[in-house]
């Protein structure tokens, strides 16, 4: 789908530095690491995730869903006298509203995560199996505006990649 050139690193600090350098040439450079690297977002100039907005909207939807089902069912669809309490016993509905707010907020965040990370994904390409354990990679896709295979390979070697690979699929 999306091929490109990957450079493999073993040092956490080096890869972040390398990324910062490579990012100056290639806008769409991507880093792959076994754990979140401190400073990588900054190095690659990744914008802040927009998921909190999704969570907020999800939470709001949950809250209104909660308010709607409690009030509508208890007071409008079939009002029933329960223990002499008013049909809209708002204080008693708060726990339901609260729980639904949390539930919708949490689930919408996870759905958003899946959406933005494009997971679940069948057969993700594996550049190096150790990338999930102790190695790091920088990847320059062919789709990058200023992609040039030779330049990319050289640059990666220059910044300290132990190995540079052509990757057919990303």
């Amino acid at each position, binding site marked *: 789908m999306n091929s490109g050139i990957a450079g493999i690193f073993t040092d956490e600090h080096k890869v972040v530095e390398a990324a910062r350098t490579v990012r100056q040439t290639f806008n769409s450079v991507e880093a792959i690491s076994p*754990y979140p690297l401190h400073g990588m977002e900054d190095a690659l100039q990744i914008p802040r995730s927009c998921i909190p907005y999704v969570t907020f909207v999800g939470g709001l939807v949950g809250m209104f869903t909660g308010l709607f089902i409690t009030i509508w069912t208890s007071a409008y669809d079939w009002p029933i006298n*329960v223990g002499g309490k008013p049909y809209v016993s708002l204080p008693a509905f708060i726990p339901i509203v609260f*729980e639904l707010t949390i539930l919708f907020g*949490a689930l919408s965040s996870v759905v958003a995560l899946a959406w933005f990370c494009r997971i679940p994904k069948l057969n993700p390409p594996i550049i190096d199996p150790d990338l999930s354990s102790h190695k790091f990679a920088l990847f320059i896709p062919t789709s990058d505006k200023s992609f040039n295979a030779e330049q990319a390979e050289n640059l990666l070697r220059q910044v300290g990649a132990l190995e540079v690979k052509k990757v057919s699929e990303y």
Partner: protein
Amino acid sequence: MIKRKQLVLGNKTLVDITNDICEPVESIPKKGWITLFLGAKTLMIFYFGIIGYILANGIGLLGVNHPIAWGTMIVTFVFWIGIGHAGTLISAILFLFRQKWRTSVARTAEAMTVFAVMTAGLFPLLHTGRPWLDFWLFPYPNQRGPLWVNFRSPLLWDVFAVSTYATVSIVFWYIGMVPDFATLKDRAKNKIRKIVYGALSLGWRGTARNWSHYEMVYLLLAGLSTPLVLSVHTIVSFDFAVSNLPGWHTTIFPPYFVAGAIFSGFAMVITLMTCVRIGFPKFKDYITIDHMEVMNKIIMTTGLMVGYAYTSEFFIAWYSGNVYERYVFVNRALGTYGWCYWAMVSCNVLLPQIFWFKKARRSLTTMFIISIFVNIGMWFERFVITVTSLHHDFLPSSWGNYAWSFFDGCILFGSFGMFLTLFLGYLRVFPAISIAEIKTVMHVGKDGGHS
């Protein structure tokens, strides 16, 4: 500035960490684990047999009666739900507070949460008279009018709270494991493992952008879980506090229950962690004595908090001037079930005071014993609240005692069978420490490392 303690001992490299943590998942179990697992599994099968028998014959097989309509099932439900809270506390609240030491115990604590909630979740479903109709508690459109549910009932709040809690805990736990599953998949030598862990990892690759979203979601979930975990035990306490029974009808219950939950949860974490350290010696470098000591401090603190709650209840009962309220508390300490009360006080308030001594805090044997007692004490706390309040209520004519039966014991001990089976299975199937996360804190406290 205080020098930080090392969180990971033994100068591990990234490879070492990966290997150490993946070892239990990738190696063949040894005798000890197999024995424990078979034992737990047998207990679980017996437990399900007992549940089946109760389902077939009626809830009357337990000791519940008039006036004590809630017994072992609800007591044990609150017990397990409470235990679950420590996991969320470690993984979410300590995460928000940037407590890095949480990393090595968070995964297992969360697993404990999920299994404890699973174990607990069965009880409210099974304790009803007609469990096959439990789905009536969900507000779904139906052919009866439709007839909805009573949103004023704390039990309905429970349904929402516990199911939300279970869902969010599982999601949180699972999201945390996704990168580790990717690691396991990449290390997998055989095809089936590759497929299974591949599916579980959802195709996770660990690109910088993904990590960025991932960390944000993790933070959000932690942020959402924190009020959630507090709300769940608050709502569980509402089951009691919202009713009008003396001994239940108390405003102190929400914080009291949450403190108690954290207390018992940490005790259970200590119990499990001491065992994990014995079973998997390599984990000693990750789950260090320092970790245990911190948790013991929390146990001691929350122990004092429940102690305060016990005292405060008595004071308020006296101060209220209400005869029913006063009677219930006098009866709690001196009545038929006085021994339960004193068992509770000694296990929960007195025994943990030994943790004022550093030696005790750092002694594995001591903490193991104390943690067991704390769990016993916390079970009795719930028993005391549920049963002793019910057994002598308003009209003396309807007073009664709990009709203990063989099945009460089976239900209580059987639930441990279920929990332990799940937990032991987890130790062999899932990475017990977050591989990705521990790597971010491996240098903490090391010379030259940054924190």
